[in-house]
């Protein structure tokens, strides 16, 4: 009997190994912001396509771009598009695939308010510049008719101390709405803050806000929703005060469609449209234009699935999904990946 058993065993092992060799492993790294969404996508995609396994390290956008340029990973992920300088270094050429949308909300600690505060862009910029230092300032009051603001309470600005895509999007917005901000401070993942205290990560900033009456800060929309933080309505380009939500963020992308560059590297802060939330941004997967055959096919299959079946999953995790009219052009971009 032993011979037969051995035969069966060998056959079993042989098929098993063949299967293992047939499975594809993709390694990616980058932005922390879309990590919950991506890990959901990867596990759902593996149910559809058991042969493909995708690993993702959420090490931050900057580090993701670095690893992408060093070619230690199969794909990267970033909240901010790569700069021209970085793009020139990419070999083979890099493609930006927008996957979802995020937003930054302004949160605060003011006890006894009955409704959310409202800000226009220039007032917000002057608060973060330290020019407006009291909550009962006439300009804040002008944005908040009928709201009783605490008299004499000092504004304490809290910001991210770690380099962050959230900071990049927020300061990009402030640079667009305030010439003063643009010339004195500028935008980037880490900047020289004119006022306030720094906290590490969304949780560090939230800690500062919760501990200090009169504090104001910015955090990611998803983080604010998960932690039930108050968030301000912002006056958009059309002059409407808009609350951040997946719907208004998608509207911002919709409003930016006109004049969208072919490589999708675009800022959608301060977008057109009366429903558009002004501090919105894309998050991207970074793909090489040439990939090894097996991996390339698997990655393209995954992207097609993410743009299709994946989008409703994004909404469930309170990410904003891409506008329907963008899906076609993005799929055309995915088709440019050569799997050889």
């Amino acid at each position: 009997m032993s011979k037969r058993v051995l035969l069966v065993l060998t056959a079993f092992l042989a098929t098993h190994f063949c299967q293992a060799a047939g499975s594809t492993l993709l390694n990616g790294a980058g932005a922390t912001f879309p990590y919950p969404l991506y890990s959901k996508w990867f596990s759902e995609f593996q149910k559809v396509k058991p042969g493909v396994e995708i690993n993702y390290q959420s090490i931050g956008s900057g580090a993701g771009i670095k690893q992408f340029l060093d070619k230690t990973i199969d794909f990267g992920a970033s909240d901010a598009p790569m700069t021209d300088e970085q793009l020139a270094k990419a070999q083979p050429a890099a493609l930006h695939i927008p996957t979802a949308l995020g937003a930054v909300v302004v949160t605060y600690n003011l006890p006894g308010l009955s409704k959310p505060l409202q800000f226009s862009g220039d007032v917000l910029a002057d608060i973060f510049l330290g020019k407006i230092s009291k909550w009962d300032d006439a300009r804040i009051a002008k944005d908040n008719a009928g709201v009783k603001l605490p008299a004499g309470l000092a504004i304490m600005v809290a910001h991210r101390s770690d380099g962050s895509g959230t900071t990049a999007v927020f300061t990009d917005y402030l640079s667009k709405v305030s010439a003063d901000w643009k010339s004195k401070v500028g935008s980037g993942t880490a900047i020289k803050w004119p006022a306030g205290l720094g906290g590490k990560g969304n949780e560090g900033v939230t800690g500062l806000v919760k501990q200090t009456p009169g504090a104001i800060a910015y955090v990611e929309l998803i983080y604010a929703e998960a932690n039930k933080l108050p968030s301000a309505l912002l006056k958009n380009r059309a002059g409407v005060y808009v609350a951040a939500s997946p719907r208004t963020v998608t509207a911002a992308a919709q409003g930016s469609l006109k004049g969208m560059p072919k490589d999708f590297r675009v800022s959608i802060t301060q977008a057109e449209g009366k429903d558009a939330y002004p501090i919105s941004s894309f998050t991207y997967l970074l793909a090489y234009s040439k990939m090894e055959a097996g991996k390339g096919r698997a990655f393209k299959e995954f992207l097609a699935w993410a743009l299709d079946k994946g989008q409703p999953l994004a909404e469930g995790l309170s990410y904003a999904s891409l506008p329907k009219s963008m899906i076609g052009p993005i799929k055309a971009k995915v088709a440019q990946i050569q799997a050889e």
Partner: protein
Amino acid sequence: MTATTHSSPIPAAPALAPAPRRRRDIHLGDQAFQLVLRLGALLVLALIAGIVGQLLGLSWPTIQKFGAKFLVGTDWDPVNDSFGALPFIWGTLVSSLLALLMACPVAIGASLFLNEIAHSKLAKPVAFLIEMLAAIPSVVYGLWGIFVLAPWLRTTVEPWLGARLGFLPLFQGAPFGVGMLCAGMVLAIMITPTIAAISREVFRAVPLSHREAALGLGATRWEMIYLSVLRSSMPGVVGAVILGLGRALGETMAVTMVIGNRPEIATSLFAPGQTMASVIANEYPEASGTLHISALASIGLSLFLVSIVINALARYFVWRLNRKQGGAR
């Protein structure tokens, strides 16, 4: 960090005379052992050389652009590629010094008490608890700092200090809670177990006969502790303090969470600051500009230099102390 060993009052073990019969074997073993030790020592040197080389390589663009001005510059603006390290050096030194000022009396006092005065039934569990403090992860200290210590400082301690000692520049300005004082206090708690544990070992090594001699000459308990215990173990205690200082200089996570992260040189202890280790931890992962990354590496190099200078000063201090004591005997 071996400041304690050469001056330690532990008597050297009498040298073992090798048994003549197995002389050859022992020689071989000795040689192998010596080789292993030598390799170990060389490896440490190579490691340090490697670190310095790597840091120098990475910092090169900054060194070329700013030169020595980097060390005294006060501007840190990644958007405009303008970098200066002084606020970070200041923050590291001030927070560590504050921590030492608060931790040393407590740690040394506690270990003297446990060693000389307390009954062993009390001393053992208390010593164990103090050493337990060293095992708590720094992020826990940081969270405790944000959620417990900082609010208490903001609502109670800082207004109280401001009202009574507000004429001093040290205690002026708005009380934020987080800031230099908060960072110093968290660091003090973190380095207390290090200093206490080592000082206790040093005090324990003082021979009982010294204490008996002091008491026999009619010294009171305090005089005995001062004359026979404290004075003779001073170099060891300084070594313990240096180890604590080393931990304070390099501590990253807990400090980042409570110092306020503002690269500013302020005289007030209530004001926020920023340290060298925390700016690296904060900005390195998302730094993209070549000069920004290079400036962060230069901060690392500066931290290395500051640690070396402080260690050298401490060594010199111990050496002076030893010589003075030697002369007095």
